[in-house]
């Protein structure tokens, strides 16, 4: 990536690994959500607003997915970090478009790596009483699986950062003006938001709350 030193790539990759841990393995404080990761990365790279918008667009697409048990869901944190780096490098609306695509593709790649991790973990953990030799074995198994999860997140982030020049190259002759570009992205995010709404709306009794939110946002934003 043209704009980042090797040390910065290493630091961001390690950050991606730490954020990946928060998703499932450790804490689940939601610092790994796209809204947080993208804004933080944007802030570190000097463009917090771009990061925030990208994070919110990704949230609109990811929030309808409910994270139940072994459900295969996108691996958001490393993907969002690398996607935000691409968005910042390209800049403006084309950067957001490429960042969104990078985030979605890397998120799917990450989901596959999480699947592999879960299968490997299944072979490492003691499954019945006879397989537990000592209490320390449990601590070792947990630490080693969390360590591999960290390495997985770090590698995925590094891979994503390595792909930034590819996204820059694809976006080089972006033909659309900012407004229609943001329009296309907003349409996609709105469909995602609508699919989330389907599971909440009940018998339509909350439409007035939704309307209040819509008008409040427009009123504040247009002032």
């Amino acid at each position, binding site marked *: 990536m043209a704009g980042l030193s090797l040390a910065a790539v290493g630091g961001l990759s390690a950050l991606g690994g730490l954020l990946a841990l928060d998703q499932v393995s450790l804490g689940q404080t*939601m610092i790994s959500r796209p809204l947080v990761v993208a804004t933080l990365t944007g802030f570190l790279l000097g463009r917090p607003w771009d990061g925030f918008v990208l994070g*919110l667009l990704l949230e609109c697409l990811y929030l309808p997915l409910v994270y139940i048990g072994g459900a295969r869901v996108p691996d958001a944190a490393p993907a969002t970090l690398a996607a935000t780096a691409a968005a910042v490098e390209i800049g403006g609306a084309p950067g957001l478009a490429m960042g969104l695509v990078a985030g979605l593709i890397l998120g799917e790649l990450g989901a596959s790596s999480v699947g592999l991790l879960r299968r490997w*973990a299944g072979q490492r953990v003691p499954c019945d009483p006879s397989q537990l030799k000592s209490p320390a074995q449990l601590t070792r198994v947990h630490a080693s699986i969390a360590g591999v999860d960290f390495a997985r997140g770090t590698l995925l982030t590094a891979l994503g950062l390595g792909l930034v020049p590819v996204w820059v190259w694809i976006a080089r002759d972006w033909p659309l003006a900012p407004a229609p570009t943001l329009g296309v992205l907003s349409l996609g995010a*709105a469909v995602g*938001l609508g699919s989330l709404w389907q599971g909440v709306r009940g018998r339509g009794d909350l439409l007035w709350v939704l309307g209040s939110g819509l008008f409040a946002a427009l009123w504040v934003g247009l002032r």
Partner: protein
Amino acid sequence: MIGLRASVAAFLRLFAVQAAWNHRTMIGSGFAFALAPILRRVHADPERLREALARHVGPFNAHPYLAGLAVGAVGRMEAEGADPAAVERFKAAVRGPLGGLGDQLIWARALPATALVAGGIGLSLERPLAGVLLFLIPYNVIHLGLRMGAFRAGLQSGSLVAPRIRRMSLGGWTSRLRIPVALGVGLVLGGLVLLVRPAGPSPATLWGLGVVAAFAFGAQVGAKVWRPLVGTLVLAVFLISVVGRVT
């Protein structure tokens, strides 16, 4: 009987209860890992400790924020010398409710509510860092409150924890949280309409109406649209790039 030190150690280990999540035992070994400090306090003899721990490595599942309720309750039962078969029956009885209630309350309500309200406010006010803090602080107040409340309820009540779960009224909170989710959806929808403003009054209005229509479409088809939507978005961006190259 269990002691503050063992309780705190078990509570802290609960933050890693899913570290070894797998399709064979789910959070089974995480359950045993979190329970270990309490069992260590109960069983001084290493072989008895190993045997007690080994009884808990089998399949178990619960929402990670509510798993503490089962760990606390089982810890108390073990400390009171409960029959292992009764402990197993207790675990089998609570795993379904702790999973279902937690998934609905947290993943389907609290997370979208806090993320969307904060995101919508941040977008409308153009304050990204405020948006992130408005998400993380309320969410983690709920998260940590639930983790602590669940673990404490389990430790204090043991196998008689069911009335405590009912008093926590998790189902009621799940229903009440629909209101902030709806507010957040409205705020973000308004924010998305505002995003297309640079086009000027007339095209911006058209894009804004398009955004509302896309929302209505999503509300009609629901979550099954997810994969086609993502595929379409990726394809659209690539096609636009190709058009830019060719023209």
